């Protein structure tokens, strides 16, 4: 069985520690691909406030992770998504995929990010230096990126 770890947390994550946990006891891993999403500054942005739907979020994250393991033959994967107030430069999300071969790990990471962005119930509100704040609009290109994978369980 692939090793799947899912977490929603306010705290920062330690990608090296998570990688060590993912790999522990596995000698059949040839590569680990990772993606860390970061709060990008610009336009006076100070922070993001991340809200989620407890329960549904974790179940969607697990479905996405298990689907990636099956589709790409992963040894395991880890997805950690932060919630709460995250200042510019702070990490938001970590996806780690471990597999025997490199391309599977890299493609699975892209697949999981595309699905997370469009199917896990998180919402971002932007806080600006001016004091103004606004909910982030969804981007059509995120839906298009997800669409190339077909359905979650293809």
């Amino acid at each position: 069985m692939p090793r799947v770890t899912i977490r929603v947390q306010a705290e920062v994550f330690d990608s090296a520690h998570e990688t060590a946990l993912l790999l522990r006891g596995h000698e059949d891993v040839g590569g680990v691909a990772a993606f860390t999403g970061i709060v990008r500054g610009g336009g006076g942005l100070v922070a993001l406030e991340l809200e989620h739907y407890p329960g549904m979020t974790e179940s969607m994250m697990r479905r996405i992770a298990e689907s990636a393991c099956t589709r790409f033959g992963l040894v395991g994967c880890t997805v950690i998504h932060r919630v709460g107030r995250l200042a510019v430069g702070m990490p938001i999300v970590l996806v780690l995929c471990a597999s025997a071969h490199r391309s599977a790990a890299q493609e699975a990471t892209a697949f999981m990010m595309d699905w997370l962005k469009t199917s896990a119930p998180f919402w971002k509100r932007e806080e600006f230096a001016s004091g103004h704040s606004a909910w982030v609009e969804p981007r059509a290109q995120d839906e298009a990126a997800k669409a190339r994978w077909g359905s979650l369980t293809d």
Partner: protein
Amino acid sequence: MLRILYFAWLRDRLGRSGETLPLPQGAHCVQDLITALRARGGEYAAIFARPELIRVAVNQSFATIAAPIAAHDEIAFFPPVTGG
């Protein structure tokens, strides 16, 4: 009782994160619930007049407005997600 949840700007505009509600008389699907909520007027009418801006989950799974609902279901309304 139905458990209704509102997230993100829906919660901001409605001023509440959720409510419990008896299944409205004759309601069988999400659309029937939306019709009942619109009938309250005010922000409810304004928000639910534009269902294309809203996503729905029934019992924590994405659903369409045609999805059936029953007493004790958890029904969430929220904008398209923007995590990751």
